[in-house]
């Protein structure tokens, strides 16, 4: 058996930017006010009436090359099961080195003093559930799964649909794919 490699496909054609993923993430993970692990970006191009808009539900990209983990002096930031990037809050000193090195602004400081970010809801995944954002998404824009498994839905989407990752030039090899 090959190692799992968790990833998410975000279908920008389906996403309406409703923020249901954001709210359900907040309640699932009991985030304090002001703290977000995922967020919506609406990117508009053109001038009236020749316009295009891409809507993206964004989160930590659980990168293949992790500048955040490399930058972390305490080992709190680490790569866990399936390539999921986690922060061990007991070890985090809140020094923000990881935040400075993340090109995606995916991390924020929890009021309790540690750095927090998307975990792909690994606690749910371990119970056989999908991340909370995917579970609630009314448009089924989010697909989480194991990219190492060619039969998984996320593999199927990423392999068959045109897609892009954010800031490929940053060299972090993101594992969140935006289907276009």
């Amino acid at each position, binding site marked *: 058996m090959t190692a799992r490699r968790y990833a998410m496909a975000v279908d920008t054609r389906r996403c309406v930017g409703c923020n249901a993923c954001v709210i359900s993430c907040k309640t699932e993970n009991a985030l304090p006010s002001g703290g*977000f692990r995922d967020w919506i970006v609406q990117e508009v191009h053109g001038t*009236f009436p020749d316009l295009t808009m891409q809507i993206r539900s964004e989160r930590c990209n659980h990168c293949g090359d992790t500048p955040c983990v490399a930058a972390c002096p305490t080992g709190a930031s680490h790569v866990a099961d399936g390539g999921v990037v986690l922060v*061990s809050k007991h070890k985090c000193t809140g020094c923000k080195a990881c935040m400075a090195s993340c090109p995606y602004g995916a991390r924020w400081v929890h009021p309790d003093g540690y750095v927090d970010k998307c975990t792909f809801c690994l606690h749910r995944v371990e119970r056989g559930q999908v991340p909370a954002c995917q579970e609630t998404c*009314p448009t*089924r824009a989010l697909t989480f799964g194991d990219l190492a498994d060619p039969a998984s839905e996320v593999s199927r989407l990423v392999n068959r649909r045109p897609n892009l990752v954010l800031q490929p030039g940053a060299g972090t090899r993101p594992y969140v794919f935006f289907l276009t």
Partner: protein
Amino acid sequence: MALSRRQFIQIGAGGAGGAALATGLPTRWWGLDGDPTPDPRTDGDQVVASYCELCFWGCGVLAHVKDGRVTKITGNPAHPLSRGMLCPRGAGGTGLLYDPDRLQRPLLRRAKRGEDVFEEVSWDAALGKVAEGLEGVKQRHGPEALALFTHGSGGAWFKQFMKAWGSPNIGAPSYAQCRGPREAAFQLTFGTPLGSPEPLDLANARCITLIGSHLGENMHNTQVQELADALGAGAQLVVVDPRFSVAASKARYWLPIKPGTDIALLLSWIHVLLAEGLYDAAYLAEHATGLEELKAHVATSTPEWAGAITGLDPGLIRASARLIGAARPASLIHPGRHTVWYGDDTQRERAMAILVALLGSWGRRGGYVKQDKFPLAGYPHGGLPPPATRPKVDKPKGGRYPLASEVLASGLCDATRPGQSLYDLKAWMVYGCNLIQAMPDRPRLIEAIQQLELLVAVDVLPAEICGFADVVLPEATYLERDDDAWNGPWRQPFLAVRQMVVPPLYDSKPGWWIVKELAAKVGLSSHFPWKDAREYVQARLAVKGQSWEVLSTTGVLMGEPFPTCQEDGAELTLETESGKIELYSQELADLDFDPLPVFRPQEEAPPDHFRLLSGRAPLHTFGRTVNNRLLAEPYPENEVWLNADAAARLPGFERRPLEQGEKVVLVNQDGVRSTPVKVKLTQRIRTDCVFMVHGWGQTAAKQRYAFGRGASDALLTTRYKLDPIMGGTGMNVNFVRFERAPEVA
């Protein structure tokens, strides 16, 4: 036997790093004090099935309770409206339950109406005051002098009370201030109003046309799900909107129409379909009347004619018409929801209904399908209340709006100002609707309110209307109460229950309790013979042999599927007088209205003014979620959308142009000024109109978060145009100009 992944985790979860060890992936070492898979532990030790009340859609939810607190709310997979998924509002229901500004105890007014000075009293004292007030009104003016304004599922109890009390004046702004025109138009054309949820088969449509309906921002969960499914399956989308809405961004054709000219566009679409034979001739021959009249009527309504009126490229009109026509019969013209725009709204909706008929999509898969309700019995020993002796009072003295099918909330407001109607209203009960934001012409509304002898508000939050009430009754939120069962119409009938998830906070009470206690005080107990809502629902279920035990666990019970469209073998039923689809409406002709929709130009904006348009944001429902801290986080206030090029030419701003996010004050044509609101400079809107999300600019200081945030489109809606056919208040007829907001020191 090989352990499944799940079993392995259960075994391994006790030791730190179990998950990581399980896969042997490269993992940085950390101490045994570590938390390998941070688990927020928000799963409930108790999960209660119920249905949502953050909007009227009523999705099935599962509420997780841990240590007596509702930690999260997820979609109920068994419920056909949510299918396990929730919109942000539904997911944010705990923000309502734990809103720090909730009404906690009954309140009696202690100053002038509208000054918002109250004293907390006991329920006994508060309901005593209501009973005394109601009895007085009844003695002096009769029982019909009481009106109820209602919105939401708990309103059912108050409707029962009104019937027992003997007043027919039960209204909701959701009719004359929202979907009324389309109900009248589809009734006229097909013999059936649409109701809610609408009988649309979006998922199977091959082309979906939205006219001023920004589905996706307007977050009707099931419809948004189906819209995405349809798009995912390759359906085409046509969007008519002066604004580049979210839906427009996904459309094959976006038609950035000049506001107020939709009927011209619709007539020219009809013209193209007829001229190019892109209609279902066989279907019309069998089921419709008036095709010849229609053909003659639109003979000159060419795309070129409409282009000059609508500001749209005739080529775009023609191309979109062809796309719409080619996808028939699975070509779905969405009827829209908030349809009160220009006072000719029934006629615009008639044009849409005619288009539906031409496409043959009524009764067809991917079009308008059949729905049915789960059979639910009445309460066995209810006993019929005596019928009211005087008629409804929502129409002016002479009687107008011949095709209004529900009571007009605006008509009830008018009937409260002396001498306007057959008789005067003297008391209001307002359940769950903040009339201050819902109604146009606020000065006249407040004038009506000041005429009242009694105003009772039932709410969960200190909404603006509560500030005007004599008595404020704090209701428990939907998570804290039982309610009546729900059996709305659907493609497969279903029944859903509302159950108490946690006991009410503070001294708030469920609606059923409030009504039962009030009834006892005014001698109407015999009409409320049940012990509580649960017994009431259980008795209704038992009549048809349904089990409460099952329902209370699953939250929902599915009825028998039945054929919903011709493709499934359903017959086309048309309940019009003629038994046919009435393209030409003899009924309208007989009433001296246009039997076929006619385009008449709207008033143009005064110089330097923009037409004010309003709409929705997916995180909020009307004005009732603006105080919800959870939902406000991603969307804390509304902004006024202004075309960036128009902003650069704005008179008075030459020396220092408006900047993105700067605060402005909007001044309408009657000199009414908004509260300061941020400007959103964007290319996503035409240069002749501005757009705001409805519900902000609230004046209730006790809603501490919402107070003074953003601006109210309702405040600026001092004018409206009445739909003569059904009494809707067309509200897109106001114009605003910009001023820079004064800098506050």
